[in-house]
C-alpha cells in the first residue's frame, strides 16, 4: 500500500514527516507541471473549480507512478471542496484507475468514520506514535510557515534578485532533515540566520497584501509565484493564509497575525455572513490590510470559485470605501504567466505612485476605515 496526497504548498513537508516517522510507505505525486493540469482538465468536469482539476491531475500522475491509496479531505460545505474527494473518486474510477480513496472528514458526527480511516492508514502503528508524529510534523510546518513569512517580508530588499528564494529552498531542506525537537530548534536557528544573512539594499518600501482562496494562495506553481513576483517588483508582501493557520480549527492565526474573528468583524460593513471557503476573510483582510497601512491588495481566486466570486463582487465597493487598491486575479488553466506579470507590474507601480502622492500631499490620504 503506497499512500499519496495532492500537492498544496508546504503540505508535503508535514505529511512526509508524519509517514517517515511512522515508517509507512508513501509517495509524493510528481511535482506540479503543465501535464498535471492537462490531465486534470481532461478528466475533470468542465466548470468545476480549478483546484479540483489540479489535485485530480496530481492523483492521476501519482497512480501512474504506483501509488494506490489516495488521501483527501472531505467536508460538509457549503463550498465544493467538501465534495472533491467523492467526485474525484467517481472520475478516477470511471477512467479505469485502480486505487482506494480515503476520505478524511473532520465533522463531529463523522468521528467514528475518521477513526476507522486513520486506523487503516496507520497500519498497526500505535496511536501514541501517530500522535507524536503529527505533533512533530505540525511543529515543522509552523517553522516552514514562519520562514515563508520572513521570506515575504525581506524579498523586496534583495540586493540580487532571487537570493531570498534560493535561501528559502535551502531552509526547507534544513527543516525537512530535522529528525527530532533538538534538531528542529537547530534548524530554526540556522534557517533564520541563513535567511537574514541574504545581502540587502536600501529600497523604497511599498506593502502589498495577498488575500484569496487558500489553495491558490498556498500553491506557488498554480498562482504563478505571485508572491515571488511581487517581492521581485520591490513589494513587502503579507498574505492572509498560512498552512498551519488554515489547519487550526480554533480560527486563531498565530502566524498570519489576526484571527478569523477579527477579519469577520472587519468584513461586517460589507459582508455579514459566512459564505463558505475564505470569502468573508478575503473581504475582512482587505479592510485589515488597509488599517495596517498597506498600499494594495492582490486577490487570488480560482475560476468559478463560489465564495471568492462573492468576495470579488464586493471587493470593488470595499476598495472604493476603504481606499485601498485591489486587483483580482481569476486563475484557471488558460491563465498565462505574462498576463499576470504585466498586471502585477502595473499594479505595483500604481500603488507606488499613489503612496508617493500621499506622502507629498497628506490631504490625498484617504480616511481610515
Amino acid at each position, binding site marked *: 500500500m503506497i499512500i499519496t496526497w495532492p500537492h498544496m504548498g508546504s503540505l508535503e513537508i508535514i505529511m512526509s514527516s508524519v509517514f517517515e516517522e511512522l515508517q509507512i510507505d508513501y509517495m509524493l505525486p510528481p511535482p506540479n507541471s503543465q501535464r498535471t493540469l492537462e490531465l486534470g482538465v481532461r478528466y475533470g*468536469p*468542465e*466548470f*468545476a*473549480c480549478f483546484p479540483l482539476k489540479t489535485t485530480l491531475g496530481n492523483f492521476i500522475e501519482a497512480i501512474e507512478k504506483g501509488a494506490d491509496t489516495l488521501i483527501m479531505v*472531505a467536508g*460538509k*460545505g*457549503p*463550498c*465544493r471542496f*467538501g*465534495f472533491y*474527494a*467523492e*467526485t474525484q473518486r*467517481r*472520475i478516477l474510477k*470511471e477512467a479505469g484507475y485502480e486505487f482506494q480513496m480515503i*476520505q478524511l472528514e473532520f465533522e463531529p458526527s463523522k468521528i467514528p468514520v475518521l477513526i476507522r480511516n486513520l486506523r487503516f492508514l496507520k497500519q498497526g502503528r500505535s496511536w501514541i506514535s501517530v500522535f507524536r508524529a503529527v505533533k512533530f510534523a505540525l511543529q515543522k510546518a509552523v517553522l516552514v510557515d514562519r520562514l515563508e513569512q520572513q521570506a515575504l517580508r525581506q524579498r523586496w530588499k534583495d540586493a540580487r534578485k532571487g537570493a531570498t528564494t534560493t535561501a528559502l529552498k535551502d531552509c526547507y531542506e534544513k527543516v525537512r532533515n530535522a529528525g527530532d525537537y533538538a534538531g528542529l530548534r537547530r534548524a530554526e536557528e540556522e534557517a533564520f540566520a541563513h535567511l537574514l544573512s541574504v545581502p540587502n539594499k536600501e529600497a523604497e518600501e511599498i506593502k502589498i497584501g495577498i488575500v484569496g482562496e487558500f489553495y491558490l494562495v498556498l500553491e506557488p506553481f498554480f498562482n504563478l509565484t505571485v508572491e515571488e513576483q511581487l517581492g521581485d517588483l520591490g513589494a513587502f508582501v503579507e498574505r492572509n493564509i498560512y498552512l498551519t493557520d488554515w489547519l487550526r480549527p480554533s480560527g486563531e492565526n498565530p502566524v498570519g497575525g489576526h484571527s478569523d474573528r477579527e477579519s469577520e468583524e472587519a468584513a461586517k460593513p*460589507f*459582508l*455579514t*455572513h*459566512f*459564505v*463558505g*471557503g475564505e*470569502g468573508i476573510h478575503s473581504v475582512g483582510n482587505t479592510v485589515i490590510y488597509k488599517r495596517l497601512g498597506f498600499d494594495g491588495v492582490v486577490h487570488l*481566486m480560482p*475560476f*468559478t*470559485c*463560489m*465564495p471568492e*466570486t*462573492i468576495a*470579488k*463582487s*464586493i471587493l*470593488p*465597493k470595499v476598495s472604493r470605501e476603504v481606499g485601498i487598491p485591489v486587483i483580482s486575479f*481569476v486563475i484557471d488553466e488558460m491563465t498565462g504567466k505574462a498576463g499576470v506579470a504585466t498586471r502585477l507590474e502595473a499594479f505595483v507601480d500604481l500603488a507606488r505612485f499613489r503612496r508617493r502622492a500621499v506622502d507629498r500631499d497628506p490631504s490625498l490620504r484617504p480616511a481610515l476605515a
Partner: protein
Amino acid sequence: MQVVKSFEGGLNMKVGIPGGLLYFRYGRLWTSFLQALGAEVVESGETTRSILNSGVSKAENESCLPVKVFYGHVMSLKDRVDALFVPRLVSVKKRTHTCPKMLGLPDMARAATEEEIPIIGPTIDFHSGLWSNYRTVYSTGRIFTTNPWRIIGAGIKAWREHRQYLKGLTLGLTPRGTLEVDESRRLCEGRELRVAVIGHHYNVYDTFTTMSLLDRLKGMGVDVITAEMVPERLRNKELKRLPKTIYWSYEQEIAGAILACAKYKLADGIIFMISFPCGPDSIIRVLCEQENKLMGNIPMMTLVMDEHTGEGGFLTRIEAFVDMLRWKKDRVGESEEVMVPA
C-alpha cells in the same frame, strides 16, 4: 436581520421583490407575507432582454447566469421602490446548505445598488432551530407593523399560500399557472413522450433564459416532469443510497429527482438544465451521469445555459433529443438489442 440605512417603516411602504433566483420557489410566500403586513409589493416580473443586459453589465463576470439575471431584476426595481426584499437563505433543511451565492445575496445586492436603497435581508437558517427563525420573521414583520397578531396572522396566511403554491408545482403546474390557478397549463397530460426537465427552479421556470423550453416541449407533444413532480419519497430513497450525502438542499432535490427518474423509469429521457458556471451542479452532474449509466441508462442530455446561448443551437439540440427519444420508443417493440447504442 439587517436593514441597511435606517428608514421609516410602516404601512404602505413600497417593497420590491426581484423576480430571480429563489423567487421561483418562495415568491408567493414573500409576496403574500408582505402584502398581509400592509406593504405594497412591487415585483419585477419576468426576465426580459433589458433586465438580462443590465444584470450582465452590473454583475461580476464570473457570476453564474441566474445571479446576473437577479442583478438585472434588482437594477430594474431599485428606482421604483422604497426598499428591496432580498432574504438570505442559509439553510432550508437541517444539515444542508443552500448555494454560497444565496448566502451572500443581500450583501451582493447592496454592493450592486451602491447602498442607494435599503435592503430587507432576513437570515433564515435551519441550523439554528425554529425559534431563531421565528424571531427573524417576527422582526421582519416589525418593520411594517407593531401589531403582533397581524404579523403572526400574515405569517400563517403566507405559509398556507406557499404550501398551496408548492402543491401546484407538484401537480405539474407552471409557476404562473399556479398563481392564476389555471388548470389548463398542466405540464403533464399523458402525451406520447415524457421528458424530465430537471434543474434549479430558477433554471427550469425562467421563461426567458430557457427560451420557454417547457412550452416548446409541450408544443412538440412531450409531457414534462420537473424535480418537484418526482415524489419526495422516491427522491429521498435514492439519495440514501449514495456513499456521501449531498450537502446542498436544492442539489439534493435535483440529484434525487434524476436518480429516481433513472431508477424507476419515470420518464423517457432526462434534460438536466445547468447554468454556466453553477458550482454545485458541476459536481452533481458527474454523480448523476455516472449513476444513471449504472442503473438504467435512460437518455440524458445536459444543457448548459449562459447569456450567450443562441436560440437556434438550443432548439436544434432539443429537437434532436426529442426525435431520438421518439425513435427509440418506436423501436422498443422491434428489437431490444438496438435500443441503446453504446
